[in-house]
């Protein structure tokens, strides 16, 4: 496809009618979690949208994010989006390998310098010069810096790229870091999740394709449209929580009746993601609907936040409370001060107080 053609021209060439285009826009607006009133604006923007070059780099990761993306259940929307973006490098999906693959990346970077979108999954090891993960003999650290230099914006897909993820978990043997820990001079959007919901990945790409900008972000760099509300706030089991109806074990009467999983360690109240509405597997279900609590995979350092089945704890958000929390928990003062020496993100997620349902309700 010619890069100069707009999406509207591209669709008409493929024999798609204006009504079909409006169907596409309605589904795309829904995919982007935009209100239906935005459909005309989406249509106007998509009509004029041009094809961006996308370079996808996979670093210290498990390929789960790509697996998630390629199992997206909305093939028409996604395939149109992917037909319309120029995915110039993705080492799992592309046919080329070795020198040919790296040459394709270099050409895409030169031809689209300053304009291409860089997508990253996986964390970046920094310890010992970053030698713990290399591609084509180049460390992930060097490669990220090189590719980021000419990018218009960066999308960090998955909790590893967004916040370090599993490789970042204690004791973090490779010195894993997030994209935003290393690159500070580019717009960066985080799409965390282990893996992220496929329609959220494509929704973010659709937003960039449609409007040419990144959507509005929260304080952790996540698009508010998908991460603006907690799992708890959007959970269909919330009415049980409000009525104090909880499953106490995974096979008791409450569990069978689908009551709230808060007491079984559900991290829904402290986790921000779209699972409760977007759901997984063609919108079929999500972990809580399957009877298991949320493990909080879209939050920083979720692996180090205590057991998945432990009573929920919430991060405190200022120094005084963190120290108080540590003291209440019986931690040594030195350890508490040690917490404060770590970066703010780390501290906020590591220092916890155990709370009760009444505490969360503000009683």
């Amino acid at each position: 496809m010619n890069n100069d053609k707009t999406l509207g021209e591209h669709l008409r060439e493929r024999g798609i009618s204006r009504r079909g285009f409006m169907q596409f826009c309605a589904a795309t607006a829904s995919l982007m979690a935009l209100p239906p009133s935005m459909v005309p604006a989406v249509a106007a923007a998509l009509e004029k949208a041009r094809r961006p070059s996308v370079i996808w780099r996979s670093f210290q990761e498990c390929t789960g994010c790509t697996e998630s993306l390629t199992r997206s259940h909305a093939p028409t929307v996604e395939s149109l989006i992917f037909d319309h973006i120029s995915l110039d490098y993705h080492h799992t999906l592309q046919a080329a390998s070795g020198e040919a693959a790296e040459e394709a990346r270099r050409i895409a970077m030169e031809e689209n310098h300053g304009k291409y979108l860089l997508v990253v999954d996986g964390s970046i090891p920094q310890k010992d010069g970053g030698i713990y993960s290399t591609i084509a003999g180049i460390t992930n650290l060097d490669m990220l810096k090189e590719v980021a230099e000419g990018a218009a914006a960066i999308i960090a897909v998955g909790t590893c790229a967004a916040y370090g993820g599993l490789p970042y978990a204690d004791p973090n043997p490779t010195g894993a870091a997030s994209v935003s820990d290393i690159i500070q001079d580019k717009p960066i959007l985080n799409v965390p999740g282990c893996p992220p919901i496929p329609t959220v990945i494509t929704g973010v790409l659709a937003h960039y394709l449609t409007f040419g900008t990144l959507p509005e972000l929260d304080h952790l760099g996540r698009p508010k449209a998908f991460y603006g509300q907690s799992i708890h706030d959007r959970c269909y089991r919330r009415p049980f929580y409000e009525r104090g109806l909880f499953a106490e074990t995974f096979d008791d009467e409450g569990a069978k009746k689908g009551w709230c999983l808060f007491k079984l360690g559900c991290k829904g109240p402290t986790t921000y993601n779209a699972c409760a509405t977007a759901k997984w597997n063609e919108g079929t279900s999500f972990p809580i609907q399957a009877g298991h609590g949320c493990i909080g995979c879209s939050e920083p350092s979720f692996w180090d936040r205590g057991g998945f089945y432990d009573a929920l704890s919430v991060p405190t958000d200022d120094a005084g409370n963190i120290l108080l929390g540590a003291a209440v928990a019986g931690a040594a003062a030195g350890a508490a001060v040690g917490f404060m020496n770590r970066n703010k993100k780390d501290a906020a997620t590591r220092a916890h107080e155990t709370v009760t349902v009444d505490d969360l309700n503000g009683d």
Partner: protein
Amino acid sequence: MSHIQDIPITVLDRQGSQAQTGNVLPILNEIRYALALLVAKGTSTTIDLSAIPFAPGDREELERILGQGEVSALIDALGETRIRETDYRGVWLVSHHSPQGDNLATQIEVTRTPSLVSTPEQDIPDAVDALDDYLNSQLTQESA
């Protein structure tokens, strides 16, 4: 060896699901508000059901309550869009599907006619041109 029937899964009936979670009533209230707005000011409203946290069975319960009205339409453009008016006039259920049949989005439109049913404005002059082309081709054939 365990059999699937040995797995202790309790399937709640649809009425039970609705009655216990109470997630359907807020949507019905939203539809009621949108209908009142349509009556008072002629303003149409679209509610995207994919943004609603439904419990298993809630969607079916909502559709059961809304019922089936007099009008149905099938748009076959980029995948199918199925449209039906519900028992409550002016309340339409619109579901978009991919060519493979996957549900991409489901919306409730509270309006006189769902927007996708109307012919796009630019298609009408195009239709005039297309019909002209056909008639001219017929004239050419007759004169040949």
